[in-house]
């Protein structure tokens, strides 16, 4: 019943918001949503307390037969791989709700969709049945499409449609792979526990695994399947971006580990060298593309492309340390990218632009955004992998776990980590250092200097979520053992399982 609460709370919340009679003001809807999400966070924490980290397999399992004819069961379970992601989901959805202050239309639907996404993501992480996972994976798609296409920016229709098409193809490939698995093994048992694939010929395994890889590769996203992400991010509102980068991309990497690595260990071992190269390309491509961006949000979006590549590298290496690094990287990236998008959102709200050619000197203490700037420096340093923050320990584990297996790909990915410092430093230097001005550079210093700006101060309550995220990033960087305590047993089992098979 504990795990079901992760679905019940947000879904009931969605129903309550939608069925609440009468016209409700935004503030009240927001508070109700925050309350519901707080309950969800508490439920997630209760599960964390109940969770026994020494058990490798699924725990707190729940099972109800649903449609046995097609192999769909209501079967839930949680392990060291999914628990951190459930926690991140609870925390970041809460952040998203808190930072939603000024939406211009239909707040009721907006908050309902937020809760629906959170519930669907929970469902995908704790589903113990392939079809059930797929159901939740698709369920999250519609509300997100709505969030982008209704509450997005100027070019929202284009971005939302692109997102919809890409993700729909991703869903089709994944469903195809799941059904193909049933077809080839001749069983309609879609429960996650037995490794079905060892009954298959290698050719069939590789075809299915490729479908899984492409499907989740779109979601992660990996180059060249990433094209939907920068557009979706630039058009989405800040809270939606936080959710998209912090939580929804993790569905892709989670799926990669759970349904790629865990279901097809033999085929995975075959493809691993190629995957490592793919990861390195993704990292370098994402980082280089980020350097050339002038829109802050696009830059952060491309940095996501680069940083999610580390997870693929870690998965390809498939050692206990690299997989642990993958979990760390998922959590760290969730926190860091959420913080980055949040801060870019504050800058956008106060200045009306995200253009790096236009923004200068935002760190100015009296007229600018000093606290936002300070937190931005922390966030970009964390993202660049500076020690003492979450990014470093994650990257260290990924690299340390992968270098023996794939030295070249690992070293190339480390170059990508160096490039992260380049583009984020450019961001901080251009937008936050220098003399405060919000104007395109005209090569005429007098003209540029004369435009004096006074930005509206950021109220403290606007920065509390950012401070909380920053504190979490530092805490995870200095005290990483909490997370490894939760995940290590499951992760080691996952790595060992495939070692035993191959």
């Amino acid at each position, binding site marked *: 019943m504990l795990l079901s609460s992760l679905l019940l709370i947000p879904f009931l919340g969605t129903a309550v918001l939608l069925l609440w009679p009468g016209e409700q003001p935004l503030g009240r809807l927001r508070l109700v949503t925050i309350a519901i999400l707080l309950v969800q966070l508490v439920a997630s924490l209760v599960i964390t307390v109940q969770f026994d980290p020494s058990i490798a397999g699924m725990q707190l399992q729940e099972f109800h037969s649903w449609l046995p004819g097609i192999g769909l069961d209501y079967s839930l379970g949680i392990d060291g791989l999914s628990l951190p992601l459930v926690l991140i989901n609870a925390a970041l959805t809460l952040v998203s709700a808190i930072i939603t202050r000024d939406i211009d239309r239909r707040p009721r639907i907006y908050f309902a969709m937020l809760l629906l996404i959170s519930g669907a993501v929970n469902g995908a992480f704790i589903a113990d049945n392939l079809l059930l996972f797929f159901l939740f994976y698709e369920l999250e798609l519609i509300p997100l499409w709505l969030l982008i296409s209704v509450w997005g920016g100027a070019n929202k229709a284009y971005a939302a449609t692109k997102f919809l098409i890409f993700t729909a193809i991703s869903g089709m490939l994944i469903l195809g792979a799941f059904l193909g698995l049933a077809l080839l093994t001749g069983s309609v048992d879609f429960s996650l526990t037995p490794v079905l694939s060892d009954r298959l010929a290698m050719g069939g395994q590789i075809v299915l695994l490729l479908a899984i890889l492409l499907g989740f590769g779109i979601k992660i996203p990996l180059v060249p399947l990433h094209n939907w992400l920068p557009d979706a991010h630039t058009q989405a509102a800040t809270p939606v971006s936080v959710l998209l980068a912090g939580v929804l991309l993790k569905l892709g990497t989670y799926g990669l580990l759970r349904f790629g690595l865990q279901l097809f260990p033999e085929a995975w071992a075959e493809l691993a060298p190629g995957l490592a190269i793919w990861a390195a390309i993704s990292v370098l491509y994402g980082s280089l593309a980020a350097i050339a961006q002038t829109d802050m949000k696009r830059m952060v979006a491309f940095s996501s492309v680069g940083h999610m590549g580390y997870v693929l590298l870690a998965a390809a290496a498939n050692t206990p340390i690299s997989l642990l690094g993958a979990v760390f990287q998922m959590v760290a990236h969730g926190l860091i990218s959420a913080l980055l998008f949040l801060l870019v959102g504050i800058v956008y709200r106060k200045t009306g632009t995200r253009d790096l050619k236009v923004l200068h000197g935002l760190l100015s203490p009296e007229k600018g955004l000093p606290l936002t700037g300070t937190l931005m420096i922390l966030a970009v340093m964390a993202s660049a992998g500076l020690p003492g923050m979450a990014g470093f320990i994650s990257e260290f584990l990924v690299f340390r776990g992968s270098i023996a297996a794939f030295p070249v790909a690992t070293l190339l990915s480390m170059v990508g980590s160096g490039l992260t410092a*380049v583009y984020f430093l450019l961001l901080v*230097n251009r937008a936050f250092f220098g003399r405060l001005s919000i104007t395109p550079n005209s090569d005429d210093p007098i003209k540029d200097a004369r435009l004096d700006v006074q930005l509206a101060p950021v109220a403290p309550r606007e920065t509390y979520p950012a401070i909380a995220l920053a504190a979490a990033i530092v805490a995870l960087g200095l005290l990483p053992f909490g997370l490894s305590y939760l995940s290590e047993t499951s992760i080691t089992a996952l790595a060992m399982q495939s070692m035993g098979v191959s």
Partner: protein
Amino acid sequence: MSAALPLPLQLIWLIPIYGFSGMLLSLPWATGWIKRNGPRPAAYLNLLVTLLAVVHGSLVIRSVYDIGPQHVDLAWFQAADLNLRIGFDLSLTNLAALEFVTAMSLICQIYALGYLDKEWSLARFYALIGFFEGAMSGVVLSSNLFMSYFLLEMLTLSTYLLVGFWYAQPLVVTAARDAFLTKRVGDVLLLMGVVALSAFAGSMEFNDLYDWAGNLKGTGALGPVGISLLGLGLIAGPMGKCAQFPMHLWLDEAMEGPNPASILRNSVVVTCGAIVLMKLMPIVQLSPVATDVLLVVGAISAIGGALVSLAQVDLKRAFSYSTTSYLGLVFIAIALQLPGIALLLLFAHGLARALQFMGVGSIIATTNCQDLTELGGIGTRMPATSLAFIIGSAGVVGLLPLGSFWCYGLMVNSLQDSAPGFAVVFLLTNLLTATNSTRVYRSLFLGEPLPKTKRAPEVNWLMALPMVSLSVIVLLLPAMMQRIDPVPGIASFSLPVAVAVSLSGLIGVVIGALVPLDQFWSRSTTPWIRTLQDLLAYDFYTPEIYRRTVVSLVANLAQFTRWVDLNVIKSLADGVGNLSMATANDLKLSVSGKTQSYVLTVLFAIVLLLGVLQIGRGG
């Protein structure tokens, strides 16, 4: 950790915490939460914790003196075969370095009270200095490579923030960027080495790594290429930290930061980098390539840095290049397996250079000017500063029997037979440094007072006190060195060597005294001198070379990726989308409601299908 250890040793983990806590304690003032009483309390709190660090350090030294070197470590993170620990190596050498770091930090913080008297973000400065000090005191005590790397990166971050302290000025912006990126390049290469070592050697403790390196030749686990790459990766980090060629640019640009931080950077930060290199040397020396690179880099930095410093008209830059030059000498000493002398040199150089920079800071604080061509005749007006500058310069140059003289003597003595070429490098560097110091001294303190120096009073006591105290320390340094290095003694070199060292210094002073100095014509009108001057003044055009190579490479790659992203991948995605939309639109028009056209379409499709099937069967 054994319970039998004396309390100061058990609490050794507090040492880096002092600095970091100073940062946390400053935050209420730095962020402006407390506005009522100015930022001074943050400075006092930082001074207090630094004083605690100094006292704690000396208690540890006393204990270690009694019971011998100790090793203390705590678990930090463990997963599978990875065991990352927080480890402290409490040898007398490391502790001496620790005292050096904390004492210099204390002195600089007192000095900064005077120097940054009216700075509105004083608390932020002290927060950063606390962070800086915490990281450095951890680096010098660290017993494992992981912790060293961890803290070195924190140093990179705090350098970036300290250089960018006055972030509203355009030059500061580029200086901070370059400082961070140059060091980051070194750090990423070092990280590659650290990760590889961690994966191949297992443990991260320096002692285990030495054992592993000792057995490596037997096992052949890593090919010669692998070993060379490893060695090069490991030396890249210290090269960046010590501002060695080709990663030396940042130190010069970093002079845009506040002077008290420059004092620390030019004395203790570079020392930290060199100490890490010293700890890595047993692994680096496996690779002859890496050792050779160290020697070449050291020699180029030593001579090149000394030459470039001659042509600088900016007061701080004239000495920052000299720091690069001295660290080059240290690199040579380390690469030639003379760690003892390298340490002495670091120590002697660090103290004397800090004093020199304090003198420089006093002049800048009083005149608000750091352009040599606008300064002159300060000698009679600022006697304490003048004296400090002379003592500092004499401490750096091997001429009078102060710190560096003995280091030069020991060094030249050990090199004269084995590597005479490097002995010449040392003497030449000494000569050029002496020339530079004399030249700068003349244009600062002698001659007629200029408009900016006519009313230059001596600095306030907050700056004068640390400066005078440090002058006394620099004067007493040879006695201290004698105690640190008692066995052969610091005077264990022959008379001809002593004469050679003194002579090189003397020639330098004479050249420096004779070289024509004209405030107005500081850039010569004679074409060939002018070309030479420009070459040196612009640092052999290194920034330009960088801009045309590395920077443009990355920028072009980034633009290319962007182009691919827009023109290949995006158009592909859009193209497929547009195609389907266009087809749908066309089909929409074909919905005419005429049954004949539908029948025709169906018929056509059936014919086509059958035709394809027929061809397929026939084939």
